[in-house]
């Protein structure tokens, strides 16, 4: 009896139960079959990784003199020709922007990245952030166009590369997201005219491919404008992207609105909150948190969809990469260029994805008991 009253001293779990050894045992070698599969996959991964290192690092050619690509061609595919990146990276990043002025496009890219980082930090989530955005976007506009402050004027037709991708994606999502919230709310409106308008917008835009919208924006839209009036081609593409992204995001937001129980609306009504107070303080904060994963999914999709503007002759990152290897000397080195361009896209998309996971965990803390 008295023995039972003395608690058994706690001891740490045996090494076979916890830690990495246990993990490997439980997950990779839990039986003879899974052990066999694990070994086979491990062999394939190592073989592939060694092959890639050999191609990409050991046998690679990093630079060649004066466009003499003979050294690259001599490899006959056994090594990467990174010289194409060394030679063409400025064209891929900045397109046909005048060479001496490319520092301006470079600073614009840095401003964009800085803007993303600042916006991602929750301690900057207050009213001043709007001013920071206006300031940053104005600075980018001044840098890219020039014509003031002693900067030479660069027409929009000469912009290209990563800057174009960032401009289309940033402005696109910055305008499409608020638009989508209004449309999602409108679709649930009790006013029939507003509801019909929102349904029409979503169904019409969602029903056509982005490419056809871009064509309409670039070819058909100018026909409706009065003589002599011309809206910038980039702006037209931008508007098409905003409208398209807005329709998709609106449905994601609407999905979030529908998950909220009716009691939340009723409680807010019973307290006498106005429609906008109810929506802004009770409904949207809850609904948007719930749809962070599909929202970011759509964001990432649209970041990459901006590459479709190549169809109307705008030089985004991917088009610039494609164009870089048209020159006869560099033909045949597509893999290196596409890997690089793909890596740049991946960096932005992966950052979005990781950030959204942190944000989700942080904002849904109230759900943890």
């Amino acid at each position, binding site marked *: 009896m008295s023995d039972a009253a003395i608690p058994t001293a706690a001891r740490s779990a045996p090494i076979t139960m916890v830690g990495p050894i246990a993990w490997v045992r439980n997950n990779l070698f839990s039986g003879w079959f899974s052990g066999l599969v694990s070994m086979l996959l491990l062999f394939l991964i190592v073989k592939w990784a060694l092959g890639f290192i050999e191609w990409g690092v050991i046998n690679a050619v990093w630079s060649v003199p004066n466009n003499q690509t003979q050294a690259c061609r001599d490899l006959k595919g056994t090594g990467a020709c990174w010289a194409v990146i060394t030679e063409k990276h400025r064209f891929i990043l900045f397109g046909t922007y005048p060479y001496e002025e490319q520092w301006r496009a470079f600073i614009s890219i840095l401003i964009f990245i800085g803007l993303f980082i600042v916006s991602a930090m929750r301690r900057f989530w207050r009213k001043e952030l709007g001013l920071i955005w206006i300031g940053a976007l104005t600075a980018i506009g001044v840098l890219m166009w020039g014509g003031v402050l002693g900067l030479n004027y660069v027409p929009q037709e000469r912009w290209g590369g990563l800057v174009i991708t960032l401009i289309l994606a940033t402005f696109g999502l910055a305008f499409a997201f608020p638009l989508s919230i209004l449309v999602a709310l409108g679709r649930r409106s009790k006013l029939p005219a507003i509801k019909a308008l929102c349904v029409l917008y979503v169904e019409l835009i969602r029903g056509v491919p982005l490419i056809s919208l871009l064509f309409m924006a670039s070819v058909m839209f100018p026909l409706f404008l009065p003589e002599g009036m011309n809206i910038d081609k980039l702006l037209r593409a931008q508007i098409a992207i905003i409208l398209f992204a807005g329709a998709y995001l609106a449905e994601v937001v609407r999905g979030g609105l529908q998950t909220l*129980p009716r*009691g939340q609306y009723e*409680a807010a009504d019973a*307290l*006498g*909150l106005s429609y906008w107070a109810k929506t802004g303080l009770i409904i949207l904060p*809850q609904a948007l948190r719930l749809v962070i994963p599909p929202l970011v999914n759509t964001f990432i999709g649209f970041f990459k969809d901006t590459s479709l503007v190549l169809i109307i002759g705008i030089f985004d990152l991917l088009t610039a990469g494609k164009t870089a290897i048209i020159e006869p000397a560099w033909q045949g080195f597509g893999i290196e260029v596409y890997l690089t361009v793909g890596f740049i896209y991946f960096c932005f998309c992966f950052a979005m994805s990781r950030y959204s996971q942190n944000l989700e965990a942080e904002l849904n803390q*109230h759900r*943890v008991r």
Partner: protein
Amino acid sequence: MSTSMEAVASAARADAPPAIMLDKVNKWYGALHVLRDVTLNVALGERLVVCGPSGSGKSTLIRCINRLETHQEGTIKVDGIELSDDLRALDAIRREVGMVFQSFNLFPHLTILENCTLAPIWVRHMPKAEAEALAMEYLERVKIPEQAKKYPGQLSGGQQQRVAIARALCMKPKIMLFDEPTSALDPEMIKEVLETMVGLAETGMTMVCVTHEMGFARQVADRVVFMDRGEIVEQGPPGDIFENPRTDRLKLFLSQILRGH
């Protein structure tokens, strides 16, 4: 019956205009007639308990009082203001009428304190510090000031319902509506919520409670209204209603309630 009813009402507050007036109110859900010619006056300071079997329209009735549901015929006046499509009148009424729901309906993304200060700040335009002091005062009164920084999900059902009462009181309403406030609670938590409601009744608040808690009705109600199939069947002081039911429908209902407890 009507004389005893009027006696109760006048005892509550002599000669005051009724806080709530319903005159021949009718409501349909599609073809379903859920409120039939309901006429009911609630005096200022009166404590009214509404009971009846499920589907009798009792919840619909009190949800019509702050227009969470709209009625199709008849008039409803709250604090002298008629309920209509006029949004300004509706806002005025909702400021004066607090409501407590069966499923609490706290805002899960806000702390307990934020739940309580939200409406005073955004509807009454009260400074934040003042709203927080007021909220703490009411949280004190429902005996959970120490939970102010937690989220609703971290509280028990009984605690959540007491927060919901405090949240409604922070708007300093003239009238409080309770829609089956204890029906979603475990038995051991019902008591703490009822005690809070009794305490509130003692302050002279005008209260309309839809509840099956007969002990509560006996203790605080000035008048009990029994509804069945969308109409008021009987009403009177709790003693009369529970000891001397006159209609078969009430007798049946009481026997079912008693058997259930």
